[in-house]
């Protein structure tokens, strides 16, 4: 491990520091100067996220100059700045930026708590960046705790309404269970291996005993909470159903992004012995929400289940993160990194469609959706592109992600995981077609409504939706970036 130096500390922790400092500043200003306009906080948050992303890009220069070919390490090797962490920080900052830019849709409901909402988005992103740079159990717990507490806080911002309050409480309980599971798991792993360093742990797990296996399983379950994998998926459905659309989009997309990053870092860097477990969990996490979607009664729940399905695909892809056929590295990590970009944007687009529908006074059940294309064309376009992205229907990039995930799983020797992922995607796609069909073909005599959704949120939502098509066309460069990021984990 290279010796810590100033450049390494700067490179690894600058994005996190920037985000935390500006979150504190934003919160302080919101408290001391309540008269500041919401747009001020929005642009302050955006500035923080762009700054953090820029810092990550600066670190990329340092990584390129590093002599060990991997990256820069700091704090006794607890955190590293490598291509993976930079990719992850950029993804998280992008996700946070989308959340900030679409916060206008929740402005009315959040009221004076808007500055705190923005500050929590920044701290959640900062937690995610810690998950991206950590390679040590202590930092993993810190990062995960920061993300989880911030996300629960974001949901709780809408405490004045009953349903979001309940959702926040349930999220808190689920988060507590997840953190406890992960802590127990890490404690067992530490007890078995005597090390908190993930790379060291990896080296000692070649002949894992049952107790060590339990430790790995508990850790994986705790981490899978963030991507909405069963059995800890209820919080995501609750948030998707109860919170306002902007808040739900923020929480779910940040959770999936941070959870995906953490899962990659932990399973690939340290817990490669958990692949069978990841396979079982991934298959279950794909099939269960897909089956539940058949009886989904509202579009919000459908989106929530779609987000859980994306989480299942992330876990499924990880089984293909080791050696593949011909002893070449399988493409699981590349699939996850490419997929996370696509998933985050599809989730945001879907929730923006819901926000638009709510603003236009359109119900979110199947009956309410009838004739949506005529009543609110923008909402219909957003919803169909968002849901199609979640379902992996072409020409959206979610389709390509399915192919990459299935390929990785088969290459890793887990063809049954690929079958489960494909089957789940097909089931979910049929359900999505039913909902999209209702929006476009059912005649509805209700009058056409004029949109009232804030312009910025709509534009961002539409951009997210259209990115699905763009990502398909630009899959080559995006996969090149993902490959560069994944290469350091091999």
């Amino acid at each position: 491990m290279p010796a810590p130096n100033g450049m390494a500390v700067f490179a690894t922790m600058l994005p996190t520091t920037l985000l935390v400092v500006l979150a504190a500043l934003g919160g302080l200003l919101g408290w001391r100067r309540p008269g500041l306009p919401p747009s001020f906080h929005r642009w302050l948050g955006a500035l923080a996220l762009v700054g953090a992303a820029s810092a990550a890009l600066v670190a990329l220069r340092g990584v390129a100059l590093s002599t060990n070919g991997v990256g820069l390490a700091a704090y006794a090797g607890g955190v590293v700045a490598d291509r993976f962490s930079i990719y992850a920080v950029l993804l998280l900052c992008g996700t946070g930026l989308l959340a900030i830019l679409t916060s206008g849709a929740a402005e009315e409901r959040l009221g004076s708590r808007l500055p705190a909402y923005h500050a929590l988005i920044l701290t959640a992103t900062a937690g995610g960046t810690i998950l991206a740079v950590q390679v040590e159990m202590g930092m993993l717990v810190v990062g995960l705790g920061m993300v989880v507490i911030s996300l629960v806080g974001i949901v709780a911002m809408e405490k004045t309404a009953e349903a979001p309050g309940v959702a926040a409480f349930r999220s808190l309980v689920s988060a507590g269970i997840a953190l406890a599971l992960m802590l127990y798991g890490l404690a067992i792993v530490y007890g078995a291996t005597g090390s908190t360093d993930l790379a060291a742990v990896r080296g000692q797990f070649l002949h894992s005993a049952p107790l060590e296996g339990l430790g790995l399983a508990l850790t994986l379950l705790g981490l899978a909470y963030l991507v909405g994998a069963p059995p800890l998926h209820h919080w995501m459905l609750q948030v998707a159903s109860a919170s306002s659309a902007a808040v739900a989009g923020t929480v779910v997309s940040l959770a999936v992004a941070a959870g995906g990053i953490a899962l990659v870092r932990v399973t690939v860097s340290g817990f490669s012995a958990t692949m069978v477990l990841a396979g079982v969990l991934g298959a279950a996490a794909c099939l269960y929400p897909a089956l539940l979607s058949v009886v989904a009664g509202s579009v919000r729940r459908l989106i929530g289940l779609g987000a859980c399905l994306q989480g299942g695909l992330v876990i499924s892809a990880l089984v293909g993160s080791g050696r593949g056929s011909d002893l070449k590295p399988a493409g699981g990590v590349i699939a996850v990194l490419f997929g996370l970009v696509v998933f985050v944007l599809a989730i945001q687009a879907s929730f923006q469609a819901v926000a638009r529908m709510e603003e236009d006074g359109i119900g979110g059940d199947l009956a309410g959706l009838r004739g949506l294309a005529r009543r609110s064309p923008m909402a219909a376009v957003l919803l169909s592109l968002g849901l199609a992205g979640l379902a992996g229907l072409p020409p959206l990039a979610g389709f390509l992600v399915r192919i990459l995930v299935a390929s990785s799983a088969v290459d890793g020797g887990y063809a049954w995981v690929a079958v489960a992922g494909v089957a789940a995607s097909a089931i979910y796609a049929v359900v999505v077609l039913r909902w999209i069909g209702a929006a476009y073909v059912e005649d509805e005599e209700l009058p056409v409504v004029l949109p009232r959704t804030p312009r910025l949120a709509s534009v961002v939502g539409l951009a997210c939706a259209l990115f699905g098509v763009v990502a398909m066309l630009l899959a080559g460069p995006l996969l090149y970036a993902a490959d560069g990021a994944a290469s350091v984990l091999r």
Partner: protein
Amino acid sequence: MNFLAQTSSTATTSGVTFPTLVLTAMVWSAVIFALVALLMPNQTQDQLRRMKSLGSTGAGAALFFAIWAVETQVSEAAAGTGGIPGGDLLEEHNWLSSFPITSSYHLDVDGMALSVILVVSVVFFCAALAAWRNQRHVKLLTVCLLTLETASLGILASYDWVLFLLFWTLAIAPVYVLARAFGHGHRARVATRYAATSLVSAGLLLLAAVLIAFQSGAHSFDMSTTPVSLPGDGEAVAFWLITAASLLAMAVVPLHGALLDLEEDSTGVLSAIFAAVLPSLGAYTLVHVAVGFFPGTSGSFSLFFAVLAVVTVVWGGLAALRTDDLRRLIGHVGTVFMGLVLLGVAGHTTIAITGIMFLLLARGLVIGVLMLLASLIQERTRRVHISQLGGLAWQAPFLSAFWLLATLAAAGVPLLAVFAGDFFILTGSFPAHRWASTVVLAGTLLASGVLVWTSQRIFLGASRDTFERVRDLGPLELTYLGILVGLIVLIGVVPGHFAEVFQNGAGYILFPGAA
């Protein structure tokens, strides 16, 4: 080499190389028009007319490039390269190289693809013309039809698994939306059932593609290297995955329910497309991919295909005899044709595969005409059941004439399109499967007999007062039906125009090394 062939080939002028874009233009032109239609207003009658013009022009553009591609291959047939991939129409550009399995934008065609490309583009063009009468959901119809055409042509021109799967799955959403918007009866259930079936077939194809990419050791989604050799049971597993997906799409017995319901519960233009195009795509996949990738494996299972052919043809013929619904009857006749395709696969000879190509070309045209005519009859008489019809020849002589011609073509009468396909398939399959060929021939005759009998029931007999005000075909209907029927006659009279291309294509499928 004629003019078309010269212009399609990669041309070099003063050191500048111009890429061939005929197949790209053929595949994407329709969806480009669909995108334009999507952005156009559709409130006034003028705007609706513009939208319909756009639909027809988009389909026409795709037809233009399809004919260009076909004629390029026909002109190369004399040199022995027409009908074989890797010719002047080849387009290949790197797409995904940063993943353990590489993928490229690879378009190409062989004889098998050309036969279906021609019928798909013609049927879509005629359907776009036929859709001029429609006044409901005009934008939706235009956009979905053009998207479906791009998806269909894309399937036929793809030589990369990712592209192939993309187009295969892209076809599902437009079919679902169209069936749900323009269907009747249990349209939502029927559309959902078909979408579920198609997604299952897409999933099977995806698994097969991944299996082939890894087990072949190529680590590539490229589809141009045939035959594929996989270790252990991999070859059989991949073959059966592709075959199962193809059979689902072909709607052969006992997997025919979803497509038949779709055809029955859709309106005229759509049922013509669904019946003429969708099963052909399945048949193309079976022959081009399953047999083409694994000629040895498919040959060893020829008995399975022979039995399935017999079951499909006999079932289809008997079901046609029993049904009273005009559109369902045509659907059953289409199933009988698919039984013939299966017999051709069982025959596993160059002549039988050539016959399949002729049959798919002819079948699409004949079934398309019959479905369009059936919808015109139902639209004019407001009757769905055959038993409620009769004596229409008095009011609609042109309609009757077109129907009779299509019926005779379906029956395999010489000098009409289907004859060549029937003849080659039966000739090519008879030596290997004598009993199956005999039974299939009998089943085909039964279906033809039912069609002729139906013609008699619908058009002959005394004129009925209830149908006194039934209109004959108008100029628009005469135009698009004339195109289809003209092609049926033309292919029947000069099948030799395509014979060499198809024969080369068949040789490439069965003996790729030799080609």
